[in-house]
């Protein structure tokens, strides 16, 4: 890797280059002098830059794997970032499943075929699930419980299982899986930001789970670090510290409204049905129980140190 960089620079491919995560990574790749070229694979064209070459690939298309293999054989890359994921639950669950699970399957088969040297994928700490039986800090080897009531989380779990299977079958590829905590910032849009940007936030009476958040700049930094690191495996990538949900709501400038659980359920169902932007009912568990991941392994092995504390990350939401 270092040799390749020294000679001519790294060649990088990014799927989902115009998505949330792609949008955080692309500017850093553009500005990185050690990166020679960036192959953007997406359905929409990214911003023009001399390093970026665009190839239109729709991962929901049944033939996407063949197109990917063609693209990667034509221009072999050193690192493939598979960032073509949805930011949050979608009403069209079939489409969501197609993009995330089937799309990942195609990317992984293509990666196996071209014998890709390195692969970087994102995941979310929601895969741990929110259970009262969790330890205070969830480490990477904790059992992934997920959230049976949410297709979004189940899809993410499915992706993780696929990655595990891929690792077992392709030991030659260095696979880095980054589990991000709730990403907050002025340029991202996901259930966490939608919840925290409200003025009045419904919460469950009698419960105040611990949450954490990572600032979007730190997410970009982590993705960028993944370019050159020798580490391999799964890492929790989270901001510093944890806060109770009511504290996060206040830090973001809102007011928590504790209500009995049945009322919260009804309210979320009603609001989602009427199209108001709020966290979907299936993710209610995350408002109920704590789910804080331990980011110390990423610090030790990946060298990732978050610049923002959870409270600072959430405060950035307020200013936006």
């Amino acid at each position, binding site marked *: 890797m270092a040799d390749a960089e020294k000679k001519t620079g790294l060649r990088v491919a990014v799927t989902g280059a115009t998505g949330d995560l792609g949008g955080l990574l692309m500017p850093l790749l553009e500005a990185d002098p050690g990166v020679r070229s960036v192959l953007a694979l997406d359905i929409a064209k990214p911003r023009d830059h001399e390093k970026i070459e665009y190839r239109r690939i729709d991962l929901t298309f049944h033939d996407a794997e063949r197109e990917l293999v063609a693209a990667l054989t034509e221009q072999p890359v050193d690192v493939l970032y598979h960032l073509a994921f949805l930011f949050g639950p979608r009403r069209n669950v079939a489409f969501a499943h197609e993009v995330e699970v089937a799309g990942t399957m195609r990317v992984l088969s293509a990666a196996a075929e071209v014998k890709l040297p390195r692969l970087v994928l994102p995941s979310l700490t929601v895969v741990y699930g929110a259970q*009262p*039986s969790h*330890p*205070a*800090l969830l*480490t990477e080897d904790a059992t992934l419980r997920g959230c049976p009531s949410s297709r979004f989380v189940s899809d993410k779990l499915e992706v993780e299982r696929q990655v595990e299977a891929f690792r077992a079958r392709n030991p030659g590829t260095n696979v880095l899986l980054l589990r991000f905590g709730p990403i907050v910032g002025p340029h991202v849009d996901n259930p966490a930001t939608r919840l925290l940007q409200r003025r009045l936030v419904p*919460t*469950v*009476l*009698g*419960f*105040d789970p*611990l949450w954490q958040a990572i600032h979007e700049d730190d997410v970009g930094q982590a993705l960028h670090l993944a370019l050159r690191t020798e580490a391999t495996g799964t890492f929790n990538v989270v901001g510093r510290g*944890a*806060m*109770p*949900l*009511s*504290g996060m*709501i*206040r*830090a973001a400038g809102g007011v*928590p409204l*504790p209500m009995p659980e049945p009322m919260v359920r009804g309210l979320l169902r009603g609001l989602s049905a009427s199209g108001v932007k709020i966290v979907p009912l299936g993710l209610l568990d995350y408002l109920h129980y*704590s789910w*804080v991941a331990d980011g110390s392994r990423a610090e030790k092995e990946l060298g990732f140190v978050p610049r923002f504390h959870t*409270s600072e990350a959430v405060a950035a939401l307020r200013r936006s």
Partner: protein
Amino acid sequence: MAKGVDGGSSSRGKSAKTSNGAGKPRKAQRAKPAPAESPPAEAARPSKKAKATAAPKKAKRARAEAASEESLEPSVAPAEEESHAEASLRAEVEAAAEGEFPDEELPPPPAQPEPEEEEEAALALGLDEEEERIEPEPPRDTFEPEPAHAGSIGSEPMPFAAKAMGALVLARTVVEQGLRTGGLGKLFGAARGIVKAVSSGLGASGSREVDAYGKDPELAESLSPIARFLYERYWRVTAEGAQMLPNGPAIVVANHSGALPFDGPVLSHAISRERPELPEARWLVEDQIFYAPFVGTLFNRLGAVRACPENLLRLVSEHRPVIVFPEGAQGTGKSFRERYQVKRLGRGGFAKLAVRAGVPIVPVAVVGAEEALPMLGKLPGRALGLPELPITPGPLPAKWSIRFGEPIETQSLGWAASDDPKTIQRIVEQTRESIEGMLQALLKERRSVFGG
């Protein structure tokens, strides 16, 4: 003099009352205000009334005639007092410094600043500039009383708002003084702590700083008056043998009792008091409490940690004493009749982890928790899906006694011993015997439940 004092006491009282708000900062400067207050006050009121009704020019003449500060008391008097005090101070300084610093510029005579201050003060009252040029009075020993009414000079209808403001300022000062000292302050502090605790339990605490386990330091601080009261006065906790606690990490095993598990925080507080050099002891609570709404959240904010192996190992790796209650819900759930019977110490998980981590086990007996929160029964809510609520007549003032026992060393056993059920069983038995022995001893020594 006596007559003046007697006659003036009522008016002094009155003027003192109404002028207290503004008067307090001035008190330092008042040398002999009290006796002389009365006659000028009596004389001032009629003249003030006259002033209020007279036309400005007439008022000026009246003032000139009176040629006394009394008519300008409200605004001038304070200024005069200040300048008088400053003048005397300067005079002293000059006298002291004479000859030492001959080149020093002499401070201006006291008369000069007065007209300016009077001007400003009079401007505030809305009088014309010309009319305020009052000849400075020679400094006198007598001090004028504080203005009885803030707006009584010149400005027209004695504004009710000003009176109300004065009264509010007075009230605020009184409340502040009350809060700062004495029982009222403590009561407010305790009430604030309770409000914060309730809001934390409901899930609306909004606290921005918690540690990794969920403990809220602000809540602990706001509850510290109540905690201190409970520990020192209400429960009169005594702890012996805390020197036995090792300097590094330790697993402190205690008997569990009480309808609500307050033995955890009390034991943690006892360790902080007896061994302040040790890192803060954290205690583990059973799921039945931790999962419960309100109570679970509140205890978590107070510092309770869920009882599971990962948490225990993490706390131990932070070199803390970790308090565990292996009896678990069986300890808190047992009825009052079965008090002080040590139930099965769980499945021996604490012993296994102690051996694995090479950390000593310190048995502790706690007496008093059973009677402080006696479990009289449980509300049968399970059928409705509600958690079983304990019926207890609140925290009673039983006397607590805590005794620490000899630590049980596990380091010599080696890591592999953690898989040997016989070793684990032996350690559990040893711990249990120690706790039961200490409990019996403490119960025998105890003369009465509430008296100790």
